[in-house]
Structures are given as C-alpha cells and as structure tokens.
C-alpha cells in the first residue's frame, strides 16, 4: 500500500474548497449541534433546566428520582431515538459514499445493490405471513422478528446480486448494476403481491414501514444497530485509499497494486451491513445515502478520505434534523421520517447545486 501515497489523484488544496481537516471539524460540529438541538426538542415539554437535571441524574452525579416523567421520557424515549438517528444517518451516508465510489457513478445509492428492497420484501413477508411461519410469537418478540428477517432479507438479496455480477473470476460492476436493477424490480413485484394479499392493518403497517421512522428506537435496538454501524464505519473508512485509486479506473488501480476485488467485496459487504441494520430497525429512510456524499464533494472535494467520514457525519446530521421536525411538527402525532428527509434535504441540496453549479 505504500506506493499509494504517490497516487493521490486529488490536489490537497483547491481554492473555495474546505481543507480535509476543516471539513471533518465542520461535520463533527454539525452532528453535535443537531444532537444538542434534538435533545431540547420534543413533544414532551422538557425545559433546559430540567434537561440539565436529567443529564446529571443520568450520569449519576445526582440521585435519580423515582418515576420522574422528564427523566423517563428523556432517557427511555428521546435519547435512544437521537442515538438511533446518529447510527442510521452515519450508516446511510457512509454506504452512499461507498456505492458512489465503487460504481464511479453519482447516481448510485445503497438501494442499488438490493439491501433496501430485500429488507422491504422480508419485512412485508413477516408482516403479512409472519403469523403462519412464526406462530404464537409474543408481540415484543414479534417486533424483533421483523428486525431480524428484514436484516436477513437485505443480506440475502445483496448476496444474490453480488453473485449474479461474478464473471471471469471477478466482480463486473456493470453487471452488478444491471442485476441490481432487475432484482430490485423483482423484489418490488413481490412487495406488490404481498400488498395485494394483505389485510387492511397489514397494508397500513407495510406502508408505514416503507416510509421509515425512528419511533421504534429502544436501547436494545440502538445497541445492536449502533455496533453494526460502528463496525461498518471502521471497515468502510479503511477503503478510502483504494477507492481513490479506483476512481482512476479499475485497470489503473490494479496496476498501482490496489486489491480491486477485495475492495469491491468489502464495499458491498459494509454497505449491506450498515444499510441492512439501519433499514431493519427503522424502515426505509430514503435520500440520505444519495445526497450526503454529493454535498460533501461539492464543499470538500472528491478525496474519499474526506468524503467517507464526512458523508457519515452529514448523514447523521440530516437524519437528526429531519427527525426533530418529524416528531414535533404535528405533535403529539408524528410524521413519517422518510417523507421529511426528502422534503428537507432536496430543497437544500438543489440550492447547493445552484450555488456550486460551475463545479458539478
């Protein structure tokens, strides 16, 4: 890998672009801001003073009172939800950057390799037919069965598409793209059939799942998704240099000694892991994976050492901010998050595109 140091296709400093360090600092600051803002917002009124009190109680500095509603609401409901937002946004943002790097195509998004559609199909199968093949499941376990099957469905469909893309002893990216489109269409057809045979209640549940929500964030789910996303981030960030080389073309990257096949395999695996875990726990949160990497590249340039971590940070910020709106704008009810990520993100993104149009 030492030879790679010479092969940085991207100049370090470009006027009008943030330096890598500044971009990372800005990303971190944005996540922190969104997290703090999200902590103070919610349907349940908690004043800043009460919030301080709750935080002190949570870290054990002050004895926690029995059954104080602010404490219960913040620690059991709002905090896990915020953390789930960070994990979900980071996973989706990182996966989007990986996919765009791997496909060398700005339109690529994690859905392309079938994680989302596979998870959706498995979730719908569980919602509609779960009572047949998982009989007598208690309701709490039942909600876990949905998470597990959706995660498994995402992995299985990704593996299928990855398998279909194998040719001449290697992964053909063009083949993967076509196989992805085809298998996604098949999964959608399956989803349509399940819609058809579902009852009213099941149909409503499928639709809500497809629109995504952080409402189901429990500590157990946060721990599970958070650790999977953390592993994915660790593996994914290590792919920055190989992806930089692949940006020059696969053949060139191979000549430079980059393990191209291994990089592709890892990128697909990391995406399936991160997006699969996030989607299984929250449903489909669209648009983050597509837009966060673009946004980062507009501001900080195309070096994957910046794009990968900053996409994760920006993704987390976007999901946190959208979720604050989702859970407060129609309080005490809540809007589906998937609707809001697009409603908030797209106009901001288009404004950005206009401002930077000469660079796109």
């Amino acid at each position, binding site marked *: 890998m030492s030879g790679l140091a010479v092969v940085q296709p991207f100049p370090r400093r470009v006027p009008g672009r943030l330096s890598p360090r500044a971009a990372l600092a800005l990303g971190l600051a944005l996540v922190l801001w969104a997290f703090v803002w999200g902590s103070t917002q919610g*349907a349940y009124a908690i004043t800043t003073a009460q919030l301080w009190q709750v935080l002190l109680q949570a870290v054990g500095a002050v004895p926690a009172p029995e059954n104080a509603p602010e404490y*219960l609401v913040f620690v059991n*409901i709002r905090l896990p939800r915020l953390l789930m937002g960070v994990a979900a946004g980071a996973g989706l943002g990182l996966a989007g950057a990986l996919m765009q790097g791997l496909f060398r195509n700005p339109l690529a998004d994690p859905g392309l390799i079938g994680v989302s559609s596979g998870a959706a199909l498995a979730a719908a199968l569980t919602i509609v037919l779960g009572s047949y093949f998982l009989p007598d499941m208690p309701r*709490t376990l039942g*909600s876990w069965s949905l998470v597990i099957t959706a995660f498994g469905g995402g992995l299985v469909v990704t593996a299928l598409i990855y398998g279909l893309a194998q040719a001449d002893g290697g992964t053909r990216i063009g083949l993967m793209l076509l196989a992805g489109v085809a298998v996604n269409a098949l999964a959608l057809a399956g989803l349509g059939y399940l819609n058809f045979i579902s009852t009213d209640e099941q149909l*409503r549940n499928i639709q*809500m799942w497809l629109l995504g*929500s952080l409402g189901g964030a429990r500590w157990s789910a946060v721990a599970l998704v958070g650790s999977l996303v953390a592993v994915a981030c660790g593996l994914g960030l290590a792919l920055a240099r190989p992806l930089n080389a692949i940006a020059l073309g696969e053949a060139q990257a191979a000549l430079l000694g980059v393990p191209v096949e291994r990089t592709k395999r890892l990128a697909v695996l990391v995406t399936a892991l991160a997006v699969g875990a996030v989607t299984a726990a929250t449903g489909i949160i669209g648009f983050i994976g597509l837009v966060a990497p673009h946004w980062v590249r507009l501001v900080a340039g195309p070096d994957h050492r910046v794009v990968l971590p900053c996409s994760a940070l920006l993704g987390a910020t976007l999901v946190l901010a959208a979720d604050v709106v989702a859970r407060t704008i129609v*309080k*005490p009810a809540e809007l589906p998050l998937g609707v809001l990520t697009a409603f908030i993100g797209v106009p901001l993104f288009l404004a950005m595109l206009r401002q930077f149009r000469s660079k796109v």
Partner: protein
Amino acid sequence: MPRDTGLIERRHLLRGAAALPLSFALGQVHAAGAARIVSLGGALTEVVYLLGARSQLVGTDTTSLFPEAALKTAKVGYMRQLSAEGLLSLKPDAVVGTTEAGPPVVLDQVRSAGVRVELVKADHTWDEVQRKVATVGRVAGREREATALQADLDAQWAAVQKAVAAATRRPRALFILSHSGSPMVAGTGTAADALIRFAGGTNAITQFAGYRPLTAEAMASAAPEVLLNSTQGIEALGGEAAFWQRPELALTPAFRRKALVAMEASHLLGFGPRLPAAVRELHTRMQAITA
C-alpha cells in the same frame, strides 16, 4: 326510520346523558378513575363522552370524529402509528385503545413510563361494543354509569335484532371500500361483513377474506342486489350519479334499481355505542331499497 342520522345521534347522546345525571352534571373526576385519559379509537371516544368523562379526556386519535367535540381534542395521530413521546406529552394516567393500536414498541414505552394501557380486542361482535363500554368505565372510574349504559345498549340491540329477524328477505349486499382502479370490496372477516349480517343481509362475497379488488366480471357474478358505500366514498367519486357510471356496476341487479345505501364510515363501521342505530338504519334502508 328517519334518515336524519344526526338527529338520532343527538337523541341517543342525550338519552345516555339523562340516564347518568350524577356524572354528567358535574363531570367530576371519580376518585378511583384515571384523571387524564387518551382514547385511541372512535368508538372508545364516543363511550368516554357517553359516560360523562369528557373532562378526563386529554387526547384522541384521528379516527375519533364523533361527537364533534372530539375533533377539538389534542390529536395523537393514527392509532396504528403512535408516537411515544407525543402520547406522554399529554401526561395521561391511562391510554385506552383497541388491539389495532400500535406499534407495540411504542405502547411498551408508554407502559414503561408508568402509564396504564388498556386494549380492547377488536373482533367485530356485539360483545366488542360491550367490552369497550366496560373498559372505559373501569379506566375512568365510572363503572356504575358503564353498567347502566351497557343495559341500555343491550335493550337497544335486542330491539334491533328482533326487527331484523322479522324481515323475510335477506338481500345480497356488497360493500365497496374504495374505487381506485378496480373497486375494493369487503370479503369475510371484515367489519362490513359483520354489519351486513347484523342488518339481515347476506354478503355477496364469500370467496375471500378481507378487502380485495374485484374485477367487473366477478362483480357481475357476485350479483349484489344492493351496494353499500360510505358517504365519504361517494363524495370522493363526485356524487351518486358519478357512482352509477362506474362500468363494473352496470351488470349487477343493484344497478337496475340504483340500489345504493351510503352511510357515514365511522357510524357504519365504528363498532361503538351507535352500532344498534347503524344496524337498524342499514336494515331499514336495505329492505326498502330492494323491496
């Protein structure tokens, strides 16, 4: 039977109130009951009002459309897609709903915050209505009023059943849920199927359970004598004239007489204290229109 359902409803509400002068006069909170209640489901909300517990009602879901005062309460969203923090922000002591309420994770979170959650099983039977009354009565600390209301409802139900049993014809009825593309119609195991049977009709669809789209040919072979729809559904289509222009209806026996019974959706399918009135109205109108 008068067509003016609004009048029936108002009379019914008043009669319920007259039977319960004690609670209605003051609307005071009973010592044993929950001081702050969130009701998830139109029928349960109606019961809350009938038991004179409206001062204890701090929030309802989007299916709580009757009585009109329920529209002005805080809305916690659709009962299958609740928000834990949203529910808790109303600081309820108790949440009542049907088993359709969810998601289960959210209800667990609400329970873990120390709020009593009571769910009534929804199985489209008369007993479901009585269970709703009993549950709200227990939660609101108005058992006595609930027992009185149950007796009153049982008497109404017996009278309606007697009237239905007296009719000799059992018209073939088809309930149409919506009209996007092929019409979605009610098969077995649906609230509409139960309503048709309660009102002395037979469901023209017995081949499948739940709501499914029906082709024009299947519509013709189902041969409904009367079509049932919600007033909201007819309005969405642009009125009765537009309804009868739907091509799949032309081959049904109902088309010749233009036999359509449209009733307000939550009144017809709500399975609440207005069920006897809804069944009576449906029965009378189905008999009259197919005579």
